[in-house]
């Protein structure tokens, strides 16, 4: 039963990684860049939610919606100001800009909200569901996190596979020039991708800080890196890959903490990543580049 408890915690943490990883993988799929500022958008979302709920006493639900709105705008703004001018630049220049943007967001947060940790109020109560005569306990936030991840995954998959805009996003990720010749506005599509990814980051921020309530300007950094790892693990550019990679990373991390060593858990996670990439260089569900001439 304790094993099952660990497993559920792992799936819950993994769900958060998966939601963040979706942002990385979608942006990579379309803009072919790694947006290292993505983790810090999570932090901004968490702060917005924190102030809305603790200071201005909005209901938590409204706090999350507000955070999503702010992060969506922030994501589009970051893309427009920092990345769009570099569309033709070498990828290293874009990468460095993304790292710079990450520090810029962290430092701005430091200035606005100070380095004092805030205690984040859970967006649902601290209660838990008791199952099997109390032997298995699933906290409300765990249940909410897992359900949120499943809903996001289903909605996003349907959006990408069925809608006109979703198909345009896939077309852009394959061939921007050809997409342009179809009459697709490539810049607007990239902007939309950043908007969706950043909106999801806000949700991840609220869920993350509800489960792990210490909020600081650096709160988004490590989960950001882990989620990036999850995206690579699953196969960067692949949406089901981000989902699978996130869940697996969460489970491996919690099991490593429980059964091996809590200090070594991150090392174990990355060791597994290295092994997976040795066997499958494109990640679990990544597509090996294949083109017919």
């Amino acid at each position, binding site marked *: 039963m304790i094993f099952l408890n660990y497993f559920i915690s792992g799936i819950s943490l993994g769900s958060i990684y998966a939601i963040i990883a979706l942002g990385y993988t979608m942006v990579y799929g379309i803009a072919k860049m790694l947006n290292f500022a993505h983790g810090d958008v999570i932090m901004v979302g968490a702060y917005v939610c924190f102030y809305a709920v603790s200071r201005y006493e909005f209901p938590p639900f409204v706090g999350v919606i507000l955070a999503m709105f702010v992060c969506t705008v922030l994501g589009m703004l970051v893309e427009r100001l920092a990345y769009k001018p570099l569309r033709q630049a070498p990828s290293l220049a874009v990468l460095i800009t993304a790292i710079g943007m990450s520090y810029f967001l962290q430092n701005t947060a430091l200035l606005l909200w100070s380095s004092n940790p805030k205690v984040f109020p859970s967006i649902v109560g601290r209660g838990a569901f008791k199952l099997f005569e109390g032997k298995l306990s699933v906290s409300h936030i765990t249940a909410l996190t897992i359900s949120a991840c499943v809903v996001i995954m289903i909605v996003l998959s349907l959006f990408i596979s069925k809608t006109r805009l979703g*198909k345009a996003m896939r077309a852009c990720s394959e061939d921007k*020039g050809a997409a*342009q*010749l179809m*009459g697709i506005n490539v810049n607007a599509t990239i902007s939309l991708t950043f908007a969706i990814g950043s909106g999801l980051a806000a949700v991840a921020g609220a869920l993350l800080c509800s489960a792990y309530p210490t909020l600081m300007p650096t709160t988004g950094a490590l989960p950001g890196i882990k989620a990036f790892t999850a995206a690579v693990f699953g196969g960067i550019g692949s949406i089901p890959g981000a989902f699978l990679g996130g869940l697996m990373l969460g489970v491996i991390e919690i099991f490593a903490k429980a059964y091996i060593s809590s200090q070594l858990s991150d090392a174990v996670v990355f060791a597994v990543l290295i092994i997976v990439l040795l066997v499958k260089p494109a990640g679990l569900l990544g597509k090996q580049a*294949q*083109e*017919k*001439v």
Partner: protein
Amino acid sequence: MSDAVLNVENINVYYGSIHAIKGISFDVYDGEIVTLIGANGAGKSTTLNTISGLLHPATGSVSFLGESLAKIPPHKVVERGLAQVPEGRRVFAQMTVQENLEMGAYTQTQNISDDLEKVYSLFPRLKERMNQVAGTLSGGEQQMLAMGRALMSRPKLLMLDEPSMGLAPILVEQIFDIIADLHRTGATILLVEQNAQMALSIASRGYVMETGKIVTTGTGQELLASEAVRKAYLGG
């Protein structure tokens, strides 16, 4: 000259410091097939990409249906009725045949099922494979898909960039038969080709390009018969 569908006026195009197109002018009239022929590197594809707005001329102008395209972004050019089948086909390999055709109709707001039927009747092979991923099609089928995709935008001018490239001779004949059919049903076509023989045999008029300039022009038959063109491009 006002009834030209496409009017290209003395354009100069540079890639960095390389002067790729050196002041060329030509027109395409309603219902014509006009072909640009010439060797590899003569600037044919550059000319097409400039018309569709992927490249910008340093000087000179491109007008489509009497309107200058200078300030219009490429994705808006399609809305006006200019469709390009790019060199190398560039179908969306991971999307299905049907999805590729839907992307072709991206700018269309009305129901597209009639257009789909039209394309499928023109290319029955595509209908058989409508749910197949485009990357699994053969080269000839991909060329058909690229053409069908462009037709989905209901173009007033269809630009084809090297449709015969990399195809077996029998397929080349098939593709050219389809182009000639499209022409008979009233389509206006600008065709860029290295296969001068095939292109000139179906063209109303042709322009011969050499290192960024137009060196000769005439009707398809005149150019086919011309001694200079035969020597340079038709292998004897």
